[in-house]
């Protein structure tokens, strides 16, 4: 592999090598990345990379939890960028550390560094000369900045990366050992509960605190504007205190939410910021025989994490606070906390502790700020705050509802000569730590409230937000895609896995299927006609081959469908074939996923992400929609917000197209977008009914058939 002329971005931002790695005389290496485990196995993948570059066994790698006290700042763990960004930084840092230690060994042994080899940390030279990382361990050696020009191992020379290795975090989880922030036990730990308003627009006008204060074990009642909560010695007392507060609260309810039955009209009628996402003009426009127009929608979708958000905070002085959180970015939470309370960032320590599966910007930061507010009333003692299931489903930010209108200009033969797309959506990001105002939930509920940030879209260089994957990867001669970002936000939205890509690929790939059907052409062949990129073609062909696409035998009530997406149009390539039965509810029988993530670090990790992504996307497609009336979110239990169950989960087969010579691309979000479209296309194949409004429920099928 050629020497890197430039440092990886995250290493450039955090160049001190000792921030990333430390050799210990006890025979192990501490690796300290800035990316966090959210159930995706990243910590294991990074350990594999470090072990490989250093030539040590995986068991010698100890991965340090991420904390603002010492870890490199790698921003948020999001966007399927961890293997790409953190992986390249860890690889480079490890390769340079290895070289530094080899030089030190060469000096000690009196030989040239080129004559030395490393075997599981033992450095071996000519004539059986020996030393080791552990003998040489000296923090001063890595107290220097990384430099460009280090040569990492060629992919073919890697022994650990590229192989399936068991996840490092799973034994704790299988044996029930404390691992989650929920399980944290600290001396003097208190319990807090927050009284969330009755609806997003509600204000707390009066609060009778007496009954809550009278409950044995309740230590403090905190109120600041519309934010209120209790702190107690036990969880039971905190719950009782919360129930008493709820009885004593008077709210002014405001009907600020849209009509859930008219979401598309609402989206399209709001004030919006309109931007052109992409435009392409042919030199010689082809004659247009006719134009076909369609509209597709998706509802608001909840993160619906298995664990209600939880955090612990402890004030260690009048202006110093320590936070334990399952947030996606420790530095971001620190920045927002500092902004909201006027603290110096360096007086705040945010330490990451794992939470349940995280699929984007959920309630983790919000509950951490709740804990900070409650713990201030009991300075010196740690306060653990846990949301209720209802809080989790109603108050964590939502994935934005979207409406997508597409138009295709067709030539006389039904071929596509022009494409236009319009996307209406709230912004898909209101993450903390990126704006001059804090975005944590309670900040907008205080007596002196911060303005609530209207969610925005990341730039297209980062993949965009609402407009993510709104531009088809197909080679159409003329194209125009426009995005309308809403400037009102009655329902708080932020990043949920894939941002806009899920709905945009649903629209594009459904529409492609409709156009293929109108032409009477096989949907796979129709797509391939417009697809030049060989890696895109390869995943489509691989999925079709594995699924037996061309051998499909049509039978009553069954159908198959195919779809493709390259995540962000510059990430992983993924194609999915779905097979469904309609009996009469839609049941997805089988999903075949073909994936190209470039060089694969942990094949089983990629397979696990594909299976999980395909299953989660099936749940979104068939079941999920946030429900609300004009003043409150009503889908706040597992009964009112159902997700896919064991008996409903399809078989998922994953084919990984390993490309060792290509850059590693993130896997975490690649499967969702083609999965939804493949299912919708299979439903059409089964029933002849095109459902353009998600989720694909029995009611929607009946409505679409009528």
């Amino acid at each position, binding site marked *: 592999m050629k020497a890197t002329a430039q440092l990886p971005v995250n290493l450039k931002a955090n160049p001190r090598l000792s921030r990333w790695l430390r050799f210990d005389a006890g025979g192990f290496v501490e690796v300290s990345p800035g990316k966090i485990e959210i159930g995706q196995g990243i910590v294991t993948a990074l350990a594999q990379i470090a072990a490989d570059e250093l030539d040590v066994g995986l068991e010698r790698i100890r991965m340090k939890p991420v904390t603002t006290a010492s870890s490199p700042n790698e921003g948020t763990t999001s966007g399927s960028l961890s293997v790409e960004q953190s992986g390249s930084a860890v690889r480079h840092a490890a390769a340079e550390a290895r070289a530094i230690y080899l030089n030190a060994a060469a000096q000690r042994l009196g030989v040239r560094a080129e004559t030395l080899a490393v075997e599981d940390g033992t450095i071996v030279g000519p004539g059986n000369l020996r030393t080791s990382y552990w003998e040489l361990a000296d923090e001063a050696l890595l107290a220097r900045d990384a430099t460009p020009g280090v040569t990492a191992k060629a992919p073919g020379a890697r022994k650990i990366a590229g192989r399936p290795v068991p996840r490092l975090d799973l034994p704790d989880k299988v044996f*029930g050992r404390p691992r989650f922030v929920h399980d944290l036990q600290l001396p003097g730990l208190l319990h807090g509960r927050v009284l969330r308003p009755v609806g997003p627009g509600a204000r707390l006008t009066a609060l009778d605190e007496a009954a809550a204060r009278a409950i044995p074990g309740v230590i403090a009642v905190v109120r600041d504007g519309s934010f209120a909560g209790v702190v107690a010695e*036990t969880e039971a007392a905190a719950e009782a205190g919360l129930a008493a507060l709820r009885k004593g609260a008077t709210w002014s309810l405001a009907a600020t939410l849209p009509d859930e039955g008219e979401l598309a009209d609402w989206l399209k009628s709001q004030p919006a910021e309109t931007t052109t996402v992409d435009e392409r003009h042919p030199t010689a426009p082809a004659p247009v025989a006719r134009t076909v127009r369609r509209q597709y929608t998706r509802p608001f979708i909840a993160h619906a994490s298995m664990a209600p958000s939880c955090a612990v905070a402890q004030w260690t002085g009048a202006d110093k606070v320590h936070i334990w959180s399952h947030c996606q970015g420790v530095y971001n939470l620190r920045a927002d906390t500092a902004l909201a309370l006027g603290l110096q960032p360096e007086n705040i320590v945010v330490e990451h502790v794992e*939470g*349940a599966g995280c699929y984007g910007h959920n309630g983790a930061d919000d509950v951490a700020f709740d804990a900070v507010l409650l713990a201030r009333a009991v300075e010196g003692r740690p306060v653990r705050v846990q949301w209720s299931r209802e809080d989790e489903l109603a108050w964590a930010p939502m994935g934005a509802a979207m409406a997508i209108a597409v138009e295709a200009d067709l030539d006389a033969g039904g071929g596509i000569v022009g494409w236009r797309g319009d996307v209406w959506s709230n912004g898909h990001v209101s993450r903390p730590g990126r704006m001059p105002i804090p975005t944590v939930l309670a900040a907008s509920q205080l007596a002196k409230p911060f303005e609530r940030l209207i969610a925005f879209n990341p730039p297209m260089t980062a993949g965009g937000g609402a407009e993510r994957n709104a531009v088809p990867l197909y080679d159409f001669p003329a194209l125009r895609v426009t995005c309308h970002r809403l400037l009102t936000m009655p329902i708080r939205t932020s990043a949920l896995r894939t941002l806009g890509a899920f709905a945009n690929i649903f629209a594009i790939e459904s529409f492609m299927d409709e156009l293929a059907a109108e032409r009477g052409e096989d949907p796979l062949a129709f797509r391939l006609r417009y697809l030049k990129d060989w890696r895109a073609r390869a995943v489509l062909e691989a999925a079709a081959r594995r699924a037996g696409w061309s051998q499909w035998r049509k039978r009553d009530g069954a159908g198959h469908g195919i779809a493709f997406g390259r995540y962000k149009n510059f990430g992983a390539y993924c194609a999915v074939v779905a097979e469904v039965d309609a009996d009469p509810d839609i049941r997805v029988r089988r999903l075949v996923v073909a994936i190209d993530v470039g060089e694969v670090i942990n094949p*089983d990790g990629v397979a696990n992400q594909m299976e999980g992504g395909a299953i989660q996307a099936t749940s979104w497609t068939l079941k999920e929609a946030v429900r609300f009336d004009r003043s409150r979110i009503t889908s706040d239990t597992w009964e009112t917000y159902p997700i896919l169950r064991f008996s409903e989960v399809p078989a998922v087969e994953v084919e990984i197209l390993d490309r060792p010579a290509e850059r590693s691309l993130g896997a975490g979000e690649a499967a969702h977008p083609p999965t939804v479209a493949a299912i919708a296309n299979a439903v059409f194949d089964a029933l002849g009914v095109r459902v353009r409004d998600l989720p694909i429920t029995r009611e929607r099928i009946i409505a679409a058939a009528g």
Partner: protein
Amino acid sequence: MLQFIKLRINGTERSVEADPATPLLSVLRGTLGLTGTHFGCGANQCGACNVMIDGQAVASCDTPLWAAAGKEIVTVEGLGTPERPHPLQRAFLAEQAAQCGYCTSGILISAAALLRRNPDPSEPEVRAALDRNLCRCGAHNRIVRAVLRAAKEAS
């Protein structure tokens, strides 16, 4: 009203002073420090807090202490240890049958209860037995494979 209540947990007698109406889950996690059993919804709708009581998988968030007193309670910590793992724990590691792992302990308990009453379940029987356990990451199929593997290896 506080009472001394005797519980038999993972083969050991424990005596706790608590209101008999307290949910078993809060005593397990709080008083006894057995945090392997997780809170998910508090309404017996997700299975994250499942424990075995006299061989049946039940939601501990929804079980008052008085209803568990005198019975045989098994939590994930009581299934096995790294040195002596339960066949299910061995199989979950072999199949890498988790993503975030928050739902894992409750699912292990549901599966253990299934294998007690049906040592050789079919795949649909495994899915039916786990249908009240929710998983959000999409690890379902790996979990089903792990349960079938555990059943096969135990027989």
